[in-house]
């Protein structure tokens, strides 16, 4: 068994509807395409999303494992030899706030499973609930997704500030989504960085920006990751670039 520890990365946003899950799914495929073993954890524990984007239906979920009804390793659904999904359950509101017992169980569950992978991407729920914070705390790296809208900027800043004050995290990775012109991503990032620098004295690192792209919407409708479908579209190229930068992160 491989003893090497995986690189765990949370993908979070503060607010919903910025394309978090879509980016998580496509990043998982991008890393897998490059020969890495990737586990994608649907961290939206009460309102699963990943399965919808991928058109799969899971019988065994994080929930059933936590309830002791399934073996952790059986819960991982392999879409490809190098890509596992740990699905969440839908419509289970109590999973949104994690009690201490569940946190302990989830830690055991995740550490049992994750040793088999090179990268673990955790797609968190929207909002700032305890499960979102806990998963961000669990992950070694935090990627914050936002769109260039001022409201999305504020939400991203709010979750950064919360994780920073709660867990003393001082480095965050930023991905802009749904940008309309090439420089928009970098500019929005600079704004966020400047405010985070000035008020919180913490570092941000830019991982890239994904342009608004027709083929993304189409891919969602067809329940296929766009990166597998539209090989040359701008969004695919942008995701590949983000994946390249993720490969510079090291396990701690």
């Amino acid at each position: 068994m491989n003893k090497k520890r995986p690189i765990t990365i949370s993908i979070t946003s503060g607010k919903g509807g910025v394309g978090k899950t879509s980016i998580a799914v496509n990043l998982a495929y991008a890393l897998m395409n490059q020969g890495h073993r990737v586990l994608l954890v649907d961290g939206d524990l009460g309102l699963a999303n990943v399965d919808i984007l991928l058109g799969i239906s899971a019988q065994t979920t994080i929930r059933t494992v936590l309830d002791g009804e399934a073996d952790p390793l059986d819960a991982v659904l392999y879409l490809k030899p190098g890509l596992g999904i740990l699905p969440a359950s839908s419509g289970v509101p109590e999973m949104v706030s994690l009690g201490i017992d569940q946190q302990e169980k989830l830690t055991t569950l995740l550490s049992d499973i994750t040793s088999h992978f090179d990268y673990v991407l955790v797609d968190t729920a929207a909002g700032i609930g305890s499960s979102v914070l806990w998963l961000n705390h669990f992950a070694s790296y935090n990627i914050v997704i936002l769109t260039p809208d001022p409201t999305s900027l504020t939400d991203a800043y709010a979750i950064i500030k919360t994780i920073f004050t709660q867990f003393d995290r001082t480095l965050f990775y930023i991905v802009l989504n749904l940008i309309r012109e090439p420089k928009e991503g970098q500019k929005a990032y600079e704004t966020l960085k400047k405010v985070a620098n000035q008020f919180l004295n913490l570092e941000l690192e830019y991982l890239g920006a994904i342009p608004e792209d027709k083929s993304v919407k189409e891919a969602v409708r067809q329940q296929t990751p766009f990166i597998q479908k539209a090989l040359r579209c701008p969004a695919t190229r942008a995701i590949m670039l983000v994946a390249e930068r993720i490969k510079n992160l090291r396990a701690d």
Partner: protein
Amino acid sequence: MDHHDKPLQCPYTNNGCPAIAEIKQLKQECERLRKLSQHDPLTGLFNFNHLMNTLETEMERTRRTGLSTGFIMIDLDHFKRLNDTFGHEEGNKALKWFSDILRNNLRRIDIPCRYGGEEFAIILPGIRLSQAVQAAERLRAGLKDSPIQLNDKTINISASFGVDTYASTEDISVEAFIKRADSLLFQAKSKGRNRVCYDKQKITVVPTEVTTEEKDLLFSLRYRDRLS
């Protein structure tokens, strides 16, 4: 009207019925025994027996109502040393003094108990963890503000606190719940005493507020970009 509340009346005589006198005495004895079985004679607080029964009931209430039950375990710091220095009589005085602080700083529905020795426990029905932690902090501050006279010496006694809540979704026994609070108390003691320990992760996190200054800068920079 409850028939227990009616004064006992002999149907035959108004004066000196021996049976009535006997019953009255038995009733008083029952009341005395009931108190004795539920209370700690030294401090007047509830005893361990009553604690276990009440905690069981309150946990059941939590499962029914969804309102969590708070539980605080307390240990007076360095009590053995105090006993050795001042003697057991003064030690007992300290225990009574602490019981008064408990009684004066809790809600009327809270149930303060002597767990044993210098250990105390409080059941706080229908409370959130953050509120239970506040209650413990209030007691800790109460100790600081009320020094005690022992053998003509004024001293301060502190205490360590372990605070936990039982949520309706949890499937654990009374004993397991107590054990959890006890391990938090142990944490408080091993971290240097005179503190309140609880599970920080369990408190629902209130998102850190983004200040107006931060918002203003985010917005102004962003709009400037858009205009340029």
